[in-house]
């Protein structure tokens, strides 16, 4: 069985070195993957672990997908692929090579002629994979850092200033807030209307300003509200 999936690009690896393909061509293909909203000739993959795959055929498209992800990491996080079972692998590869002969052929386009060529291409592929590894681990570090920063930010209690609540809370939020200060029903509705009218004219600049400009909100009530909010935080 060959199943059609969206597979995470980062979980795929290829045994063919990237340097074998022209960067310009990969760039062009990558742009077209992004513009067309996907890769139109799916990769053939073999699953090697819970979240790892090897390219069976379509190395060029694979590197184009990698490039697309470099350009737009969110949009091109995944790529269209057939995940091929072990026993159908041979047949699938053959079908693929008949349908899409030239560029998808896995065999190197220029067979190494002499020793130097061979060594050069080996060097190339080693460099490529080392580079990939560095990129990968750097990305993971950045991710981990971002994660930690977010966690830290979360631990800093979100101190919403009471003044800010008066200035920008929606009616529903005000209703909730007033309720926590024991003001409900008609009283709350009236007060909210008064607050909204006053702040529409001009933002409140201080608690004194609120008391001065809000109908029906005297100093004692204001203090009661602030006390109640303080206790809840």
């Amino acid at each position: 069985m060959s199943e059609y999936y969206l597979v995470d690009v980062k979980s795929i690896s290829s045994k063919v070195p990237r340097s074998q393909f022209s960067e310009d061509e990969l760039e062009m293909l990558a742009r077209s993957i992004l513009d067309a909203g996907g890769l139109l000739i799916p990769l053939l993959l073999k699953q090697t672990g819970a979240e790892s795959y090897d390219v069976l055929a379509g190395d060029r498209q694979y590197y184009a997908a990698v490039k697309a992800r470099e350009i737009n990491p969110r949009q091109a996080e995944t790529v269209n692929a057939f995940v091929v079972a072990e026993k159908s692998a041979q047949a699938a590869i053959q079908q693929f090579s008949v349908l899409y002969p030239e560029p998808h052929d896995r065999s190197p386009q220029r067979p190494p002629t002499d020793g130097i060529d061979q060594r050069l291409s080996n060097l190339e592929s080693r460099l490529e994979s080392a580079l990939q590894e560095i990129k990968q681990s750097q990305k993971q570090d950045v991710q981990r850092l971002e994660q930690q920063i977010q966690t830290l930010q979360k631990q800093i209690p979100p101190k919403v200033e009471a003044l800010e609540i008066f200035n920008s809370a929606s009616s529903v939020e005000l209703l909730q807030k007033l309720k926590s200060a024991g003001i409900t029903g008609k009283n709350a509705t009236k007060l909210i209307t008064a607050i909204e009218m006053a702040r529409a004219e001009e933002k409140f600049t201080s608690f004194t300003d609120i008391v001065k400009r809000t109908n029906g909100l005297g100093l004692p009530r204001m203090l009661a509200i602030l006390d109640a909010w303080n206790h809840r935080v």
Partner: protein
Amino acid sequence: MKTIAIYHNKGGVGKTTTAVNLAAAFRNRGKRVLLVDIDAQANSTFATGLIKFQFEEDDDIKDKNILQVISAGDFDFIPEIVRQSKEFNTPEIDVIPSHITLIDEQQRLNRLAASRLRLNTKLQLVEDDYDIVIIDAPPSRDLYAEIALIAADYLIIPSDMKPFANQGLANVKNFVGEVNETRASIGKAPLHVLGVLPSKVMTNSRYLEYVFPRQRETALQHYGFPIFDTVIYERVVLSNCINQTLTMGKLEIPDPKSIFEFDSDSDSVKEFRNLANEIQQKIGA
């Protein structure tokens, strides 16, 4: 961090009621709690006060919910999506909300090879931030239920113990078996079934004396699941606390509460405390 999924493939048996009030019970003991809603009906999201808006344009959940968590691998991590419950409990709990768009996206996600594992992976990244994670799963045997059971360490199966719910236990059992295969493939131990939780159980004394013990015995004998000692009885306060509203002019605004916030002297509070105790004993949290 201990992750507990609340699941039964039958609806209306009290999964959401259990999930949100159990989350509150643990939070009230000082535990750092995360509630994950992965049911497209978003009942837990509603019950924790996150759906107070009246108009679609005020919907602030649509683009930041569980869907994003399971769609993206390199983006939308838990700390970016999480929010605090609103006027639900003192102290409030952290919630990953759900959204009705989950229904439309299921087909696409089914084709996404890694979607089954993303929640699991992202929860691992916050394992130092939470003591307890509770996942409210949908009443179906689909991708979302699978995601919940892959991410969890433990499973609680609320059941009203009536024949339909009991028969459904066979289904739950098979499903757990399937999920365990996937868990094995990522090196995760089999799901630990804490047990069937008798929930929404009638307080009628004849029922409790004659019928309930037999139903309990059947569940135990037929399906081999352990059964909780704690029973969550059917009590009006438990549905009332979710259905609270505030009125403002002509608007009725939902104002749901945890049972602890709504009526701290109720029998239901005692039952949820007992449940939290029993779970803590079983999982050592």
